């Protein structure tokens, strides 16, 4: 028998409890950071001051054009030199969050651009203060439009979180690698890890597609 069922049953519970917890922490932490930071970036890029909007745009383009893995190394190896100490998981969450903020900021930007011009004009006609126009009129509509795309990035962050295993985070894949290296046999742990991601990602993306249709994007 090529597939070792005994071993499978032995490692399955550990993989899906210990590993899963870390994967979820990384995903949710990274996503919250990416969603919040992305919104700030989108607003900064909307700034009327070109000394704010241009550099922010350039930095985000740079982050989006370079690999997450190298960015993770920078946070993991370089920041401690400057006295910033944190756990590998925390490092990973920051890396994921900043990397995906460069994507979510584009999503928000498109969402803001998609708010009809009439909404702005109505707000001016009602003499709403500019700040209040943003908070009560534009952003709620923009975020609503952005929801399906943000859902897709949540799934993307979930799927990419295994990269954290390369900076020693023991998530589902990191755990599978440890188990595999103990026996020099990766078939069972890697297959289980892969199936686990499929099992979550496919229904999730079907759900997002539904959401998309419901919101009429």
């Amino acid at each position, binding site marked *: 028998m090529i597939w070792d069922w005994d071993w499978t049953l032995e490692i399955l519970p550990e993989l899906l409890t210990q590993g899963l917890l870390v994967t979820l922490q990384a995903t949710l932490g990274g996503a919250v950071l990416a969603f919040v930071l992305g919104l700030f970036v989108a607003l900064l890029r909307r700034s009327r001051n070109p000394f704010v909007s241009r550099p922010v745009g350039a930095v985000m383009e740079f982050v989006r054009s370079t690999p997450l893995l190298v960015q993770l190394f920078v946070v993991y190896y370089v920041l401690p030199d400057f006295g910033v100490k944190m756990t590998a998981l925390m490092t990973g969450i920051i890396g994921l969050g900043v990397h995906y903020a460069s994507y979510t900021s*584009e999503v928000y930007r498109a*969402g803001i651009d998609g708010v009809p011009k009439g909404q702005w004009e109505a707000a001016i006609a009602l003499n709403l203060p500019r700040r209040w126009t943003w908070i009560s009129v534009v952003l709620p509509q923009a975020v609503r439009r952005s929801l399906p795309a943000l859902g897709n990035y949540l799934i993307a962050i979930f799927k990419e979180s295994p990269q954290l295993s390369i900076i020693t985070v023991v998530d589902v*894949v990191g755990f599978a690698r440890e188990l595999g290296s103990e026996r020099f046999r*990766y078939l069972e742990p890697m297959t289980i890890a892969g199936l686990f991601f499929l099992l979550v990602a496919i229904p999730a993306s079907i759900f997002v597609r539904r959401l998309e249709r419901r919101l009429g994007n």
Partner: protein
Amino acid sequence: MTISPCSAELPGTLGEAMPFLCEGAVITLQSTLGGSLLAIAIALLVGLMAMSGHAWVRGVARVYMEFFRGTSVLVQLFWIFYAMPILTGFQLDKSFAGILALGLNLGAYGSEVVRGAVQSVPQGQREAAIALNFSPYHRMRYVILPQAFVGMIPPMNNLLIELLKATSLLSVITVADLTYQGRLLVNSGSDQLIVFALLLLIYFLFSYLITLIMRFVEGRAARMVGRGGPGSGRRKDRRWSRRPVSPAETPSVEGAR
């Protein structure tokens, strides 16, 4: 006298790092090129299969796309390199395994791009081709695909940059690419701040190179279908940046990776 950017005679850490980084850059470019060719071939094949008249052909395409988009390149890479040999008794060369994983993964996203672009060709074009009695093959080959091609390029540009970025994962299975060489340098005591900065810079330049190439191709293709052309207004406001991600294509393209 000019000094090559890969020369060991550059001062300090530069001279230490650049010869190795250049070696790695070549591998990175090769992997990107190999992965791109495979991904584009798969994208065309599976994208067209996804629109087939036969339900089972569409089914195969659907399963392929969901399967490879459901996990990340890293997991697929590990599986192809470490797990598959146990199952099949066949160990792939690491570079080949890497290119295979990249091509299979990005090809799945690319097929969505191909399908979307083909479906966005106006229905009237298909009908005119039927009225002129083209065979289904000729309809696709001479009427639909050439028109769909222009629409594929901007999302493909984004995908190829994703692919370039994903080549960094090959370092994990010890392919000696840029990232691998960078880590090696850091491990052997080079200034890590400088080495990582160089890495990011080189990746950024390569991304930009891809965008330049794709923009050139797009200009050519647009002129072929009588759109755009030199100095057409649309291009000016894009400056040097990639096309912004539109929510409409986000699920299929940028939700990628």
